[in-house]
């Protein structure tokens, strides 16, 4: 009875019963301490804002869509985790052979000491195993994560299946398997979706050179256009590959002595015979490490290009020397302590963390002490690049936006001046010769 009475007292939008319900709901939700004093305020607010308790979704909660979204994601995660155990595709098959894949979960423990966290490392590991099986890639490893504006890229490095054909390549592009295109890289933005791994394309020296001049923040879409000045010929996936190659070529590090220069050809290296990875104490300073890869030359390749047609009168050997003098190689196996940034600051920082006490080994007959310390080397030229070493495990990772450390502000190159058009010559009337008078014939 009372309810109907209250419902009869109406306004245009609502009735008194509804209104009282709304006011009381709001007060209960907000729970202010002096609700008594604020009661009229609440009533006024509810009237003016039109709060209605049955349409209450204050937090834009969307609880139900979350639950259904959850189910889809759980399905995908299960599929990812189970697939490699059951074989690819839905039918269980025999476990196929895969190339070597470092155990990411164990390495993640080392990286935690370095202050680098790899989220969801088990899922990444599974996704990489799947990649190894589906694309028959060998020597696969998790290269790192490049963060972008909308979605991040997870990058895997490896050697692709040799049966991939590339077709005709222009002569200055180093073919797959040599030069800057030695290793192949795959990028993916969604690790739950195994079809998402895209192999990054081969890159040209021109692309490398342009990538040295621009600074671009990736968007997360591999096919996006890269609009910069100077113009970058390619899509985001080319630029991504170029940055990855630049980072890798200049930062892979190995302990000193693991490789030696080949005699007769100082640009090639061989593994030192009978080399054992040193213990903790021998690698504590920057002097104990050296670069592994060659530097990218100014022309954007790893090896100079000798054109097949030389200018007249020039011997091939002399021509080669000329090119090399113009664009010299850097020595291979350089030590890290010699690297400096342009403003003469150090280019690497080395830290030691963890438990650094020497323990006597379990087996009584070896002399080597066990040391669980972790050596971390971080690059200051490419911030985000980390190498960790502990107990004979050496690993490297990149987590960053793909920028090189810059000491100056970045100003994009100004486009070239567009010259003004020459003013048109004023129009002149066509010369009209008077009609020709035929010459009189001579007799």
């Amino acid at each position, binding site marked *: 009875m009372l309810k109907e009475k209250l419902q009869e007292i109406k306004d245009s939008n609502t009735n008194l019963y509804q209104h009282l319900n709304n006011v009381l709901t709001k007060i209960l939700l907000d729970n202010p301490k002096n609700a008594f004093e604020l009661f009229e*305020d609440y009533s006024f607010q509810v009237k003016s804002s039109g709060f209605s308790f049955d349409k209450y979704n*204050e937090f834009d909660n*969307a609880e139900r869509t979350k639950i259904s979204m959850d189910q889809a994601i759980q399905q995908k995660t299960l599929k990812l985790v189970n697939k490699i155990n059951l074989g690819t595709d839905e039918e269980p098959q025999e476990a196929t052979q895969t190339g070597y894949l470092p155990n990411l979960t164990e390495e993640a423990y080392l990286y935690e000491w370095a202050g*680098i*966290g790899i989220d969801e490392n088990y899922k990444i590991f599974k996704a990489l195993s799947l990649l190894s099986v589906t694309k028959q890639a060998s020597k696969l490893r998790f290269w790192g*994560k490049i963060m972008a*504006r909308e979605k991040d890229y997870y990058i895997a490095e490896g050697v692709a299946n040799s049966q991939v054909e590339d077709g005709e390549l222009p002569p200055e592009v180093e073919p797959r398997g040599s030069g800057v295109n030695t290793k192949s890289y795959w990028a993916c933005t969604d690790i739950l979706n195994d079809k998402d791994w895209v192999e990054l394309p081969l890159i040209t020296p021109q692309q490398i050179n342009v990538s040295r001049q621009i600074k671009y923040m990736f968007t997360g879409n591999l096919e996006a256009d890269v609009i910069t000045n100077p113009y970058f010929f390619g899509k985001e996936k080319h630029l991504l590959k170029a940055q990855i190659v630049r980072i890798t070529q200049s930062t892979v590090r190995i302990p000193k002595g693991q490789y030696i220069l080949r005699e007769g050809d100082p640009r090639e290296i061989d593994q030192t015979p009978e080399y054992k990875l040193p213990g903790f104490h021998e690698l504590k300073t920057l002097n104990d490490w050296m670069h592994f890869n060659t530097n990218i030359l100014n022309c954007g390749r790893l090896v100079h290009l000798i054109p097949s047609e030389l200018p007249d009168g020039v011997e091939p050997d002399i021509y080669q020397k000329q090119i090399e003098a113009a664009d010299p190689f850097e020595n291979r196996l350089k030590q890290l302590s010699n690297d400096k940034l342009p403003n003469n600051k150090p280019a690497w920082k080395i830290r030691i963390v963890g438990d650094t006490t020497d323990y006597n080994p379990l087996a009584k007959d070896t002399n080597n002490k066990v040391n669980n310390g972790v050596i971390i080397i971080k690059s200051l030229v490419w911030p*985000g690049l980390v190498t960790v070493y502990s107990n004979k495990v050496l690993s490297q990772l990149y987590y960053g936006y793909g920028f090189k450390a810059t000491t100056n*502000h970045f*100003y994009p190159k100004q486009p070239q001046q567009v010259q003004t058009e020459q003013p048109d010559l004023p129009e002149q009337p066509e010369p009209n010769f008077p009609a020709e008078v035929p010459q009189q014939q001579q007799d």
Partner: protein
Amino acid sequence: MDISFNDLKFIQQIGQTLNMEERIKLKLAILKIQEHYTFDEVLFWGRVEGVEKDYYIAMGIQYKGQYEFPLKKFYWSSNNYHFAELPKYNEEYASRADNLREPFTGQHEHIVFKTEEEINFEDSLDIPAQLPAKHFSELERLSYVVQQVEFNCASIPVGSYRLTPTHELIRKAFKGVKAELKNYQHFRVPTRKDKQDLIARDEALYREDFLDSLVDDTPNQQWSLQADSTQRNITLRNLIWPGYVTYNNDYTFGYAYFGDGIKNSDFEFLL
């Protein structure tokens, strides 16, 4: 972030974390801050990496008794895990500090740039005495970076705090928001006129978006909202200060800064 460090999994999305030793020592050191000044909450703010040593920053927040916005106090420590109050930086050099691109060295007395300040005593009759110029030290640079990041980036989801009728902030039972930029707001004294009006008219008591919204930040693309593969752990990253993360799950939220303290001033050119 909370010093139980349960939320580190969010920070791992940008590839940073704290190792075991750091976690244990920081927890003890931050609890020690409460011995001198009792705050409502003492949180771990972040880590600024330097070449030789890193800096750890903690933040104490006092809600009760503060009108309009809680009081925040910052504490810093180096690798010795002994927290001290973060001093104020010299404001005249703030704009120069903004453009620095070198990493922090880790030595807090290191002089970042020399200032030519001469302080003359005017009441001295003969020769004005000059104090030696006080150079801009790395500690001041750290203080500047912390204040800048806190002002420009610190953000919380809408609906997480409420303004009480006495204009104090209290935390609410938080139920999660949809992952959109408009659902986040700055955790600072409102600077934008429309929000200040709301508070002046007391209407802010009834709304949950009474602080400056992130959507109005210019340039708007500096915020990057991403989720991990479970789509439940959301991180909101700032691209001008890379390393800053606001994270949010259904029931927890927080923010932290894990980076090298260098502002990405070229951001406008990168789009």
